[in-house]
């Protein structure tokens, strides 16, 4: 698999920087404005979504889980839609319904959304993958999930069929070794989610989740395989959850030395850029996020009519 070209690398870095700037901003926003704990910080894990989405085509389908914002940003959503939504404003992606847990979608760029009952993305991604097989449209569906979510029954039900039917589906696991405060090893027979691939006779790939390029390459390969009609792949990115489970989580359950050899995915990707573009891009991203934040702060709040919107479609 070819490495990403310089322009793509810059785009990845730009998007990662936007996601990181949102993270930093949300930390402050949570602290200063007593924002609710329904925001789940994604700092430290950005290389996985940024690498994976860079390997997808615009019209490939992405179904993601709710940590951080880098999946939506990586697939091309504007920071303003995200921040507007987090602040619960009318200019956000959900047009006023938001306020913490992400339900950002834009079907025109394949951002299909998030289900807050963990594990709900598997069969939905299975559905879009099946649609692609029926329509022969060459699209790939990606279902992103956390290590803890690998225990859901829908993981199995969907993969049994995806493997049997060779659906163009990628299971993408962000393995941070934690479900809230429980260590994965307490509730899983293996620390490597990729091991589950063996049962389905599909490739199970472990990648360095701090390195967006490694993630990119693995995802590229899996997407190519899917498009060739060879069926699903399970990719496991080993990532680090830098903060608490939710905004405000004191994390007493974590060890003092847990971050001793932590590698920041932003630094890892910056080192791969040409010249000193990293700094410039990061500054641009920060400015962009700051502007979006100001805009969100100023944007109107929803009124009661929003409650009754979007339930049924009227032709």
């Amino acid at each position, binding site marked *: 698999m070819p490495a990403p070209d310089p322009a793509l690398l810059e785009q990845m870095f730009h998007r990662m920087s936007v996601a990181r700037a949102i993270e930093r901003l949300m930390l402050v926003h949570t602290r200063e404005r007593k924002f609710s704990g329904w925001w789940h910080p994604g700092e430290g894990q950005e290389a996985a979504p940024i690498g994976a989405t860079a390997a997808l085509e615009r019209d490939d389908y992405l179904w993601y889980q709710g940590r951080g914002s880098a999946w939506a940003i990586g697939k091309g959503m504007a920071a303003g839609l995200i921040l507007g939504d987090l602040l619960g404003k009318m200019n956000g992606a959900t047009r006023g319904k938001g306020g913490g847990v992400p339900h950002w*979608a834009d079907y025109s760029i394949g951002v299909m*959304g998030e289900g807050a009952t963990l594990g709900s993305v*598997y*069969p939905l991604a299975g559905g879009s993958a*099946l*649609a692609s097989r029926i329509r022969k449209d060459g699209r790939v569906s990606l279902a992103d999930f956390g290590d803890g979510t690998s225990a859901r029954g829908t993981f199995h*039900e*969907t993969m049994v069929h995806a493997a049997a039917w060779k659906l163009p589906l990628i299971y993408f696991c962000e393995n941070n070794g934690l479900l809230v405060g429980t260590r994965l090893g307490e509730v899983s027979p293996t620390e490597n989610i990729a091991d589950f691939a063996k049962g389905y006779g599909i490739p199970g790939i472990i990648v360095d989740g701090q390195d967006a390029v490694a993630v990119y390459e693995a995802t590229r390969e899996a997407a190519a395989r899917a498009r060739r009609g060879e069926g699903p792949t399970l990719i496991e990115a080993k990532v680090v959850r830098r903060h608490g489970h939710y905004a405000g989580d004191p994390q007493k359950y974590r060890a003092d030395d847990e971050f001793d050899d932590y590698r920041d995915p932003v630094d890892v990707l910056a080192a791969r850029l040409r010249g000193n573009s990293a700094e410039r891009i990061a500054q641009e991203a920060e400015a962009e996020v700051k502007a979006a934040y100001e805009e969100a702060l100023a944007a109107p709040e929803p009124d009661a009519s929003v409650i009754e919107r979007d*339930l049924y*479609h009227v032709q």
Partner: protein
Amino acid sequence: MSSEVMGYNAAMGLGLVEEMRRDAEIFVLGQGVATGGWFGAEKGLASEFGLDRVIDCGISEAFEAGLAAGAAIVGMKPVINMGFGDFALIAGDEIYHKLAKWRYMHGLDVPMTAVIIFPIGTMGGAGPEHSSCTEVLGMHFPGLKVVVPSTPEDAKGLMKAALREPNPVLFHSVQGLGWARGEVSTDPEFIVPIGKAATPRQGRDLTIVTYGSMVPRSLEAADTLAGEGIDCEVIDLRSLVPLDWDCVLESVSRTNRAMVVHEAAKTAGPGAEIAAQIQERIFFDLEAPVLRVGGKDFPLPQHSDLEAMSIPSVDAIADTARRLFAI
């Protein structure tokens, strides 16, 4: 318009076939749908439409319902035969959270067609986990349309309507009526609109509000009562969401007496909402309480005699109507 006599399941199948012919985005999936189909509806589907559009699935109900949501969001029109209404409880997250709310929670109002077939009710000893009526779930959890046809023609017409509907539909087919026969329109544009009740019998003395398996029984009870001088109006709701309140309230405000009949367990069943709402909205038109006749609040025994005693009989309906009339 011409019509043909056929069975309930066959008519439902015909509705599906006609729509599949005109719309390539429709596909059917379920356990055994390609190899013959359980309830007769899907016979021969695979040979006409191919295995790309008629898909046998493994024993994975949550996957089936969830894939319907995923495929519908990307614009396809899945029809899923869930096998039994009881299995709503196996795929509850996918149906009542995902299918029902995905658009809502993402703030995206797009068309989303999906038909989930839930065969409900008793069919002669299928047992406690294959005979439940689960349609009330679709009333309580918002975001879905809910239909329960009682005749072959409605089975066909509602299936066709569901496949032209831009919202997910829970299509409850009545297991006990699977082989019931009746006249069915052969007009390819014939549909039964979702949300419109029918009044298969007009009457002046009291209104029986019912649907599904209890429509023929209520009509039979009404026939008996007619001989006794009690003139019943029978409303077949056909849809529970949306529910045709205009039809119900207009009738009851004329007859001044109402009862609700369904096979579903009585407590907290659809009849609870219907009774509650009738008295809430036209209390002073009522000359008597709104009564309910429903299934027993017990699981369905496997034993078919006991099963028969667990759901409303024609006699039980008639008895309640007599009591209501006498109040």
